[in-house]
């Protein structure tokens, strides 16, 4: 018997799955690694800890599920969070920690570039929104603020590139991760000269570009031994979490969109053309040379409801937030749709799509004397979903969305999934058992191995068994309230600016964002 192993290097940890060649899960394990916020706006991870955790979890998975049954590992495929940057010296040793997507240190650079003509040009060429998350801006920040690191840097890697280099000795970056760096021209699939110049580097400072199906070099001998894997074990460079979650839900072809809500969230579509947008609201990332994953990201997903739960939830079981979230969901279900007219703007962490306003802040609106605690619970969840819907609505200006799928730990909570179905007034499909990202990596591997002829064929086989049907009455109520929500989200622009300014002046905002 043979298996396919997928390794997902996520924001909070690594998740390793073993699949059969027909896509059944044999086993999975996860391992957590921390994010350090040593300074306001900084968000870093220790590359060695990520590497050791990955190795440890992979080894445990092999020893627990694979080696005892004498299963042969046909291939190992990687996926990873986008936008990370790690500088390494000429020996490949890290210069400091890896900078993650959530890092905001380049916010000034981002603001300036976004307003400039160069910014518009770079967005159109690279598909990556001009935002501090983008490695383009992080490298530029290192150049002006950490000159020693910039001088010593032989390469600027992504976290995945570093892990693959540790295991195989090769510097490589896949199309998907590369297309999220803000440095790759997504139309020509070459490093974009203007972007390189802005960052102050040459292409030699970046890893080698590789299509997602590329097999890296062999595992180093020591790891062959410690993992008990043969030298011929194929290692696929793979893709990014966003692209693979979309593929994993079978969102290839016309009329399909997928909604991911974990801590943060995104609405994505996939197709042969990019989404063009004068206002630079969407991302366009590459899955393959003729397939783009496009959409809009939000900062405010499950993390906002977790915040609410920590403040107002009932903690009868100490340290058990899942339990408290569950209780609140049950409470919310007893409140009528629309929360009797209480609206919530979920912008506690500022916002990316669709309003792209770092100064946006949260608000409850429409409060009247009959509102109770339980209305706040439901309004909070509805507010998070209105935001998701508003991203979907802007996407729908360019793409017809006929069917929807949902994934991610928050989006797949039944109450949330139903809300999405009602809001969009469309049936929503999902798969409960496992992560769409890893399944996307399995589809990629299976295609590479010839089990499927193409990714199109692979995506068509995806079946999402659970269906949530929209409730027409609820939809009508939500549609009414959404009108006000949408207006508020832009109408308050000046006041967001003012309160954001005051929060900065009085030094509270740094602290808020530190906890992100």
């Amino acid at each position, binding site marked *: 018997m043979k298996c396919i192993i997928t390794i997902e290097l996520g924001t909070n940890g690594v998740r390793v799955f073993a699949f059969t060649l027909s896509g059944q899960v044999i086993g999975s394990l996860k391992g*957590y690694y921390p994010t350090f916020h040593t300074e306001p706006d900084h968000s870093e991870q220790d590359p060695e800890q990520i590497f*050791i955790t990955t*190795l*440890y979890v992979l080894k445990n998975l092999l020893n627990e599920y694979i080696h005892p049954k004498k299963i042969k590992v046909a291939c190992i495929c990687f996926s990873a969070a986008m936008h990370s940057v790690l500088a390494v010296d000429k*020996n490949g*040793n890290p210069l400091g920690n890896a900078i993650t997507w959530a890092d905001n240190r380049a916010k000034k650079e981002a603001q300036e570039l976004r307003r400039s003509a160069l910014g518009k040009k770079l967005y159109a060429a690279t598909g990556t929104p001009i935002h501090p998350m983008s490695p383009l801006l992080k490298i530029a920040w290192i150049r002006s603020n950490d000159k020693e690191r910039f001088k010593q840097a032989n390469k600027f890697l992504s976290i995945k590139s570093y892990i693959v280099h540790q295991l195989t000795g090769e510097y490589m970056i896949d199309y998907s991760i590369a297309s999220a760096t803000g440095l790759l021209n997504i139309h020509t699939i070459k490093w974009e000269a203007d972007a390189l110049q802005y960052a102050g580097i040459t292409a030699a400072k970046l890893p080698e570009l590789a299509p997602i199906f590329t097999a890296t070099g062999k595992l180093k001998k020591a790891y062959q*031994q*410690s*993992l008990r894997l043969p030298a011929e074990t194929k290692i696929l460079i793979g893709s990014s979490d966003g692209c693979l979650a979309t593929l994993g839900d079978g969102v290839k072809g016309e009329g399909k969109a997928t909604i991911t809500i974990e801590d943060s969230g995104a609405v994505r579509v996939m197709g042969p053309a990019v989404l063009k947008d004068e206002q630079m609201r969407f991302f366009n990332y590459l899955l393959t040379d003729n397939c783009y994953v496009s959409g809009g990201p939000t900062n405010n997903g499950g993390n906002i409801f977790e915040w609410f739960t920590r403040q107002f939830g009932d903690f009868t079981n100490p340290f058990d937030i899942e339990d408290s979230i569950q209780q609140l969901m049950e409470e919310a279900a007893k409140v009528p749709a629309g929360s009797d007219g209480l609206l919530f703007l979920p912008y506690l962490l500022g916002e990316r799509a669709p309003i792209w306003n770092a100064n946006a802040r949260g608000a409850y609106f429409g409060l009247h004397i009959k509102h109770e605690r339980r209305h706040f619970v439901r309004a909070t969840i509805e507010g998070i979903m209105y935001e998701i819907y508003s991203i979907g609505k802007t996407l729908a200006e360019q793409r017809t969305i006929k069917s929807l799928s949902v994934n991610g730990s928050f989006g797949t909570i039944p109450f949330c999934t139903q809300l999405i179905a009602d809001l969009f007034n469309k049936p929503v499909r999902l798969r409960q058992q496992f992560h769409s990202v890893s399944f996307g990596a399995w589809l990629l591997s299976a295609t590479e191995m010839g089990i499927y002829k193409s990714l199109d064929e692979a995506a068509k086989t995806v079946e999402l068994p659970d269906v949530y049907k929209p409730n027409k009455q609820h939809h009508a109520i939500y549609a009414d309230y959404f009108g006000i929500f949408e207006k508020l989200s832009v109408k308050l622009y000046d006041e967001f600016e003012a309160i954001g300014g005051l929060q900065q002046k009085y030094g509270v905002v740094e602290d808020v964002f530190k906890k992100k």
Partner: protein
Amino acid sequence: MNQFVLQYGKSNELLLFPHILELGLKKNGAILFNTFLTTVTEGLRIYYIIEGRFEWRINHQPYVFYPGDVAVILPGTSFGSDKGALEIGSFSWLHLDVQKPDNGQPMFGKWSGLSESEGAAIGKILLLNPSPVLSRFPDAGKILKCIQGELFNNEVAYQARVNHQLDELLIALTRQMTRQNHSTRDFPKTFMHLEEVLRQNLSHQWTVEEMAALVGMGTTLFTERVKSYSGFSPINYLINIRISEAIKLLKRPGISVTDIALDTGFYSSQHFSTTFKKLTGYRPSEFRNNHLRNK
């Protein structure tokens, strides 16, 4: 109760309690100068505010105390007030003799009913506690009052009772400290704090009991929560951090493998080598040679 001071070696009340260096109650009716001078002692000092408002410096940091607050001053830490001023109000205190081995972590004598590992965990929490102030903790005042009563009344079995109350005080204080430092609503934050402390004290031979106590949890709940949150048992998570740090050190020339082993908490270079090889396939020296070869 009137004000008093008992000192071991001077007061007969403390004959049976060589570990109680000093116990007292002060009622101060007018501001005094040059009385509350900054001192450093080898004992663990605990002050409980009954009335008034006091501005004291602990380890050169200013703190303000209100009724119900407790100050916990570790052995070897400076404590007193600016210019020795003593404000109006009343407070009680206890100076407890503790053994202080090289690592600076307080340990308690034979008088204590705490087991060795419990005592070590309490010592660790006291040592790592970020703030010497416990706000609004009247339980500490009640225990101090009970100890005073026992010492003056000498009822049957008072010796045992006083020692029990001392243990009770240490337990109550450390539990309050962990509660004050960790919200039971936010495990990720608690876990992050643990991660920080482990990294700062990586050479320490951590036990699960100590780690659990540090975040104010029982070992069973702690192990379960860590496992479900991180995917690893607490000890394996710790090994993870140790190896990650060791890798960084191995990539730098000039520090010996034995030193790296001890710095990162392995009890010998052999132990380090076995653990490292099991995980990475390399012996530490091989790993180092591979990474320094290109230089």
